[in-house]
């Protein structure tokens, strides 16, 4: 990327973030919180560096801890577009970067049949931008006005070939289409990658990124999250739910509940009109917390009552 590009895109963020580093990080924390995302200083500092150094950030952590949310909130914080690429096994360039609109091309060839254009002209016509289907990665470097946020979700699910391709994109922010030439980024996107650590990512990709590990939140942080997301909920009930989920996490389940599950459970309790968490309520909302039969059985066997007592002990 040329220095000019960086300067131009940095203008946007400078208007939002105050000048000093400390104030900048503070602004991110409060800004994110306003958008309903409770963050800590560690993540906010990393986000600040993403904005300043224009490096991609790799966010790892267990499922349901708001990795994807980071990108969404960053986009609304910066007031810019979010472009999302969901990775999966077998993801290839034609669904991630671009594809030609074949049907339209075939029609165009038919229409052009009688015309007196040369073959070269016809070719240029059907391989022009009108016939290009832009997929997320190409979109992300084509945005006209500001830098978008590019979310590459669950990169560990894509295969190594795709990872290698991504590497190329993230170092030069340009994409080459054989029929059209090279397209350079107008504005370098803010890139957020997430991974569930289902496989080890390549060293080259990891080195190019800032790194952030998101752990299960502490009791206080999770309380703040629940209070922020569900402000209408009674504090006592919120405390019970958070304490209960935190206790369940210690049970070594195959899929420990994340924050998303805590919020589901809390919302379910509100919907059921439960004033407090009791055995019946736990049974009714078990599906929010455990996503497999075995885990459910474990939670039951561990003694719901005992967990409840543990969770209330924490608050004296």
């Amino acid at each position, binding site marked *: 990327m040329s220095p000019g590009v960086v300067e131009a895109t940095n203008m946007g963020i400078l208007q939002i973030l105050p000048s000093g*580093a400390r104030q900048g990080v503070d602004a991110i924390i409060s800004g994110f919180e306003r958008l309903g995302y409770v963050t800590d200083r560690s993540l906010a*500092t990393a986000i*600040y560096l993403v904005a300043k*150094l224009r490096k991609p950030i790799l966010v790892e952590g267990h499922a349901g801890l708001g990795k994807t949310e980071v990108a969404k909130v960053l986009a609304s914080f910066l007031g810019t577009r979010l472009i999302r690429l969901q990775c999966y096994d077998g993801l290839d360039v034609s669904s991630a970067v671009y594809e030609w609109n074949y049907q339209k091309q075939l029609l165009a060839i038919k229409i052009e049949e009688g015309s007196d254009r040369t073959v070269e002209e*016809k070719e240029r016509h059907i391989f022009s931008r009108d016939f290009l289907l832009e997929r997320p990665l190409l979109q992300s470097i084509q945005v006209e006005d500001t830098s978008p946020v590019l979310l590459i979700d669950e990169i560990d699910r894509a295969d190594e070939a795709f990872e290698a391709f991504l590497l190329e994109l993230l170092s030069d922010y340009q994409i080459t289409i054989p029929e059209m030439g090279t397209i350079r980024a107008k504005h370098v996107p803010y890139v957020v990658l997430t991974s569930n*650590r289902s496989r*080890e990512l390549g060293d080259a990709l990891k080195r190019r990124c800032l*790194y952030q590990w998101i752990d299960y939140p502490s009791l206080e942080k999770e309380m703040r999250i629940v209070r922020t997301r569900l402000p209408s909920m009674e504090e006592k009930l919120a405390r019970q739910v958070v304490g209960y989920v935190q206790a369940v996490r210690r049970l070594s389940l195959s899929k420990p509940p994340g924050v998303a599950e805590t919020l589901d459970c809390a919302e379910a309790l509100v919907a059921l009109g439960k004033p407090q968490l009791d055995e019946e309520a736990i049974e009714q909302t078990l599906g929010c917390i455990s996503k497999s039969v075995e885990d459910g059985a474990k939670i039951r066997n561990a003694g719901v009552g005992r967990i409840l007592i543990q969770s209330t002990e924490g608050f004296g």
Partner: protein
Amino acid sequence: MISAKGQPSATARTIVEFCRFAREKGLSASVHETLGALDAATVLGLGNWDDLKFGLRSVLCSSKEDWDLFEHCFEAFWRGAAPLSDHKERQPEERSSRGGRNTTSLMSTGLGDEVSSEHDGGQAVTGASIRERLTKVDFSNLPQSDMVILEQISLRLFKQMSRRLARRRRSGSSRGQVDLRKTIRRNISRGGEPMNLRYRERKPRPHRLVTLLDISGSMSSYSLFLVKFLFALQQHFRHVDTFLFSTALVDITSQFRGRRLQDALLVLSQLPAGWSSGTKIGGSLREFNQLHRRKLRSSDTLFVVLSDGWDTGDPGVLAAELGAVKRCVRKVIWLNPLLGLKDYQPITSGMSAALPYIDVFAPAHNLESLLALEMHL
């Protein structure tokens, strides 16, 4: 202000020194990361301690393990809280405490591999002669000192093997659907009439693999390697089911899937699978047939048993159950570590009962024999 260019300031030098310190402790703080750290320090300034720490952490780390290690590095370097050696001593404790009290030998060696490969990085260059020797040595005769090297070699070779397997299938596949993009390209000169069709090769569809690994006492010196072998193998089959058995059958497919090797080993060591107990091959196969037979497909399933054939159960049951399996799969492969012994004869009652139903009977006592399996897969 710190500057990466020109005359380095005192603070810049400190950052560089910290990076070197972190590298010694096992973080991958190469020149690239060091420059990143300098940039981060420039942006964040030195005013706020926490911000600097968080910033450097996000630059210098690239995995959860780094993340945990960084904490110690930072404390040790700037606060002088813990001397260098202290952390190194603490590390094994921490790791084993993650695995709980009853960590088996499988675990400790499994993690040993992780520590060495991550922390030595590129330094671990193994000589060709050692490699030659180690690929032939029987797992059960392996001196403890060679264990780590052998594991590194084997992981690399297993990876190479599975990559070769994947490639081989790709070139052998048949015509798939029409590749519109190439077709249009080819036929522009004919007015777009698709006369000359181009095909997209069908994505390789590997076999399904079902493996049963014997983890009874007689196999204990081999089990660890075989588990790793199975792990490497599963990467390149579309569908893999993995089971452990001794006196009973344990399905470890879900423990294996979607995890990294170290994490998978950690989980396995905590399973009540009956490590190093007796063997009932026939009974385990019967259990398999009752519960999991629908996973077999005669068209494309490879059924692999890794066992020494020492069976304390009824050989008649073993024969009947293996025969039932045989009818539902493409190939039955039996890997027996004892086949590596010079004068071994498969005359134990269990083994001889099983022999008629086995398509490939091969040794699995050293790395070389495992790699030789490639041609049967």
